């Protein structure tokens, strides 16, 4: 069987379908580390953690922030179910920064295990959002 040349990537959240398009390559935040996916990948079901998803079509790269969920990878398609998924241009930079500093404070003053875990997760989320949002900042700055 010849290998497929492209991947179809679908990203859905409980609220909406975020992405549905054909790409050449993608990278996902898997439960045990980031993994890159090229067309013809072995079927794989993987849990996702908080982090950055990117996919590439030609030389056009798109970045997203995603948190929790799972991805089903087939040789010619990727289906991602995420609790949240936001394109880089949808992220509110100021809000993410505020959330990050709030999470840091809570992390410092957390007492119970649950508090600590919650603070840690919200810090992770906001950091990932910031990272993704800055990607487009960098690219537009480079173009100027």
């Amino acid at each position, binding site marked *: 069987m010849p290998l497929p040349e492209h991947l179809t990537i679908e990203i859905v959240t409980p609220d909406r379908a975020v992405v549905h398009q054909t790409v050449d390559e993608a990278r996902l935040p898997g439960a*045990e580390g980031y993994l890159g996916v090229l067309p013809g990948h072995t079927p794989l*079901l993987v849990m996702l953690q908080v982090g950055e998803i990117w996919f590439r079509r030609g030389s056009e790269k798109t970045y997203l922030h995603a948190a929790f969920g799972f991805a089903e990878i087939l040789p010619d398609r990727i289906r991602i179910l995420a609790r949240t998924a936001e394109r880089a241009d949808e992220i509110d930079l100021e809000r993410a920064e505020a959330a990050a500093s709030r999470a840091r404070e809570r992390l410092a003053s957390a007492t119970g295990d649950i508090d600590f875990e919650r603070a840690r997760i919200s810090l992770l989320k906001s950091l990932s959002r910031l990272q993704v949002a800055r990607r487009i900042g960098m690219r537009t700055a480079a173009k100027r």
Partner: protein
Amino acid sequence: MPSLIDLRRRIRAVKSTEQITKAMKTVAASKLRRAQDRIVGARPFALLMRRVLSGLATRTGSSAAHPLLAPPAAPDAPILLFVVTADKGLCGSFNSNLVREATSFAVEAGRDVAMGLVGRKGRDFFVRRGVDIRFEMVNLFNDLRYSHAEAMAETSIEQYGSGAASGVSILYNEFKSVLQQQVVVDQVLPIPAIETSDDESEELSADYLFEPPAEQIFSDLLPHHVETQFFRALLESAAAEHAARMTAMDAATRNAGEMIDGLTLHMNKVRQAAITRELIEVVSGAEAL
């Protein structure tokens, strides 16, 4: 017999009521469209979730292994019934149907029933009746979020897991069409056997790699499955509420129109009678001279 002025005043009052109901109808119609879009938007997620779960269920062969699938730990504990009502009234029999169904559910259950109340109308009704309330959430339909469903799922899983509840069901209005809403009860916990249709499981039984192992993914997914079920019920209920309000307000507008017609006719008759009477008075006065 009401005087002319009284009739005019009455007509004016009905007219302004008509304007209000007409406006409410328009608002409900546009909200309904948005709510329907959200149902459609949530569909791919739910579909994919079910497909993956059923694939995993056949693959791991695990059914009773997970506590959320197993029969209740304490069979005599009350059933937790979530009742999803609206936050506002003026939507026909939307809320009263729910309350009636909830009451008859409690009678038929043969066990104690604890309640989880979502929406102001249901809360207000049951709080005064001294039922066992385990969960409360009001004022959510203006800005319905997935986190609302998460909160419901968290409570139900905790109650079921600790043996405080022997089952969890949800009662809500399902959106059938704009003219039709139907009250339905869905069993949430223990999770009813996930049906595996053949083509679905076939596609997924291809040689898959799992990261982490399949059993762990499966048990991680089950709580999310519960959340999506609650979320779907909330979305359905929101759409049904707007549809019900639209129909109710449409009927109210029509009734107001009919009433205005009737009153106007009556008013004209009264005026005509008054004019005739005055004419007769004038004429007979002139004759007497």
